């Protein structure tokens, strides 16, 4: 892609990479968009940690069911083949390694795959962790969807996380608005660059050492 993708385009790019039959959990926020872009004819089963497999998209405004919500407390729908279960069973699915993939947001990802996405450690902030730590340790593959740069301009891909960790060494791939990165034994590897930058440009702007 010559220009930088919109958030929706990035979500569609992630959706393309999810294989038929995968069981997927989408984190709160931007990752939720991925569900809207699953290619026609591909069957993906969505898990929501508040007790459901087979979650469908948001309902129309007049068909909101308060008993049928996702982990972000947004109204969702039920697809054929759905199943409900309680919270311990839901997290047993996650922690027991049964989810194929989760897509999470991030404050920072380090080059060894450490993820920080639950707390910026600011004094006075109300901390909240939810299911982030369970997803990060439990899903077979952890993908991150994020802007490459925070609003402050600081890159979110870093050598070492300065924010409190969600889990160490868990992220496998990062989809950003500038490029897609894999986490390898040697650090970040660029899979794909958007908007015409060179790998060298990316290194300059992020201060990271990138690998092929």
């Amino acid at each position, binding site marked *: 892609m010559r220009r930088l993708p919109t958030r929706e385009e990035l979500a569609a790019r992630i959706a393309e990479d999810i294989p038929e039959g995968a069981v997927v959990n989408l984190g709160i926020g931007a990752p939720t968009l991925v569900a809207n872009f699953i290619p026609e004819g591909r069957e993906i089963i969505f898990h929501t940690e508040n007790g459901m497999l087979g979650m469908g998209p948001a309902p129309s405004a007049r068909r909101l069911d308060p008993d049928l919500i996702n982990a972000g407390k947004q109204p969702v729908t039920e697809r054929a083949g759905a199943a409900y279960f309680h919270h*311990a069973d839901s*997290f047993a699915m996650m922690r027991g390694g049964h989810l194929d993939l989760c897509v999470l947001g991030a404050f920072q990802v380090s080059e060894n795959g450490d993820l920080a996405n639950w707390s910026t450690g600011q004094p006075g902030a*109300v901390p909240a962790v939810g299911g982030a730590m369970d997803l990060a340790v439990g899903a077979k593959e952890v993908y991150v969807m994020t802007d490459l740069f925070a609003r402050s301009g600081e890159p979110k891909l870093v050598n070492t996380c300065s924010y409190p960790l969600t889990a160490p060494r868990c992220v496998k791939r990062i989809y950003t608005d500038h490029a897609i990165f894999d986490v390898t034994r040697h650090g970040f590897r660029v899979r794909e660059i958007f908007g015409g930058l060179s790998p060298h440009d990316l290194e300059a702007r992020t201060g990271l050492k990138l690998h092929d």
Partner: protein
Amino acid sequence: MISKIRTNIRDAVAHIPDGATVMIGGFGRAGQPIELIDALIEHGVRDLTIVSNNAGSGDTGIAALLAAGRVRKVVCSFPRQSDSWVFDRLYRAGEVELELVPQGNLAERIRAAGAGIGAFFSPTGVGTELAAGKEHRAIGEREYVLEYPIHADAALISALHADRYGNLVYRKTGRNFGPIMATAATITIAQVDTCVELGALDPESIVTAGIFVDHVVAVGERSWLADGRFVGGTDPTGITLPLSTKEIC
């Protein structure tokens, strides 16, 4: 004849003492036992420790209990929400204590209490500040942190139907913490839309067996159902949006 069905909701919560640890079901508003919480507020107990996934939203339910000054401590995974202003204010003012627990550890610790497990090695939280100071152990190729059960004096939960044995079925994602909290408390009180005859619930589909339930209170069908079927919506701010035709979502 065994009957756990109580007609007076205040009687059902009357034996919860000051200082009790009370589990409250629900994930956000889904499955939150609003009527039981209201009865608890009216009952007047104080100095409670609340175990729940969230710490209230808007001004009802857990938020109302917090606003009434009855809660000393909250054990939860996700207190911060767009409309958690009551908790946020009390927390910043130092008027309520918070124990933050990853959601999976919260669920598994509650289950462990109900299942008689003394403690368990969990994969979640390892290498984070939420596991700091806890016992760690490498088992196989992985590192775990030791987590202990969470017991409660009482659990307040919300389900769809009950029979007089206290058998319960839930509705959609309103199930969430109800079934495990029912197992982990000395006294479990369930509010349900309606009570049904013994034998009316399919034995293959009962989610919480009556053995875990002490009191059942019927609070009437939720506004978005009619005859037990979804007839359309309530928006998340609580305003009912009736539909002209009955449809299953």
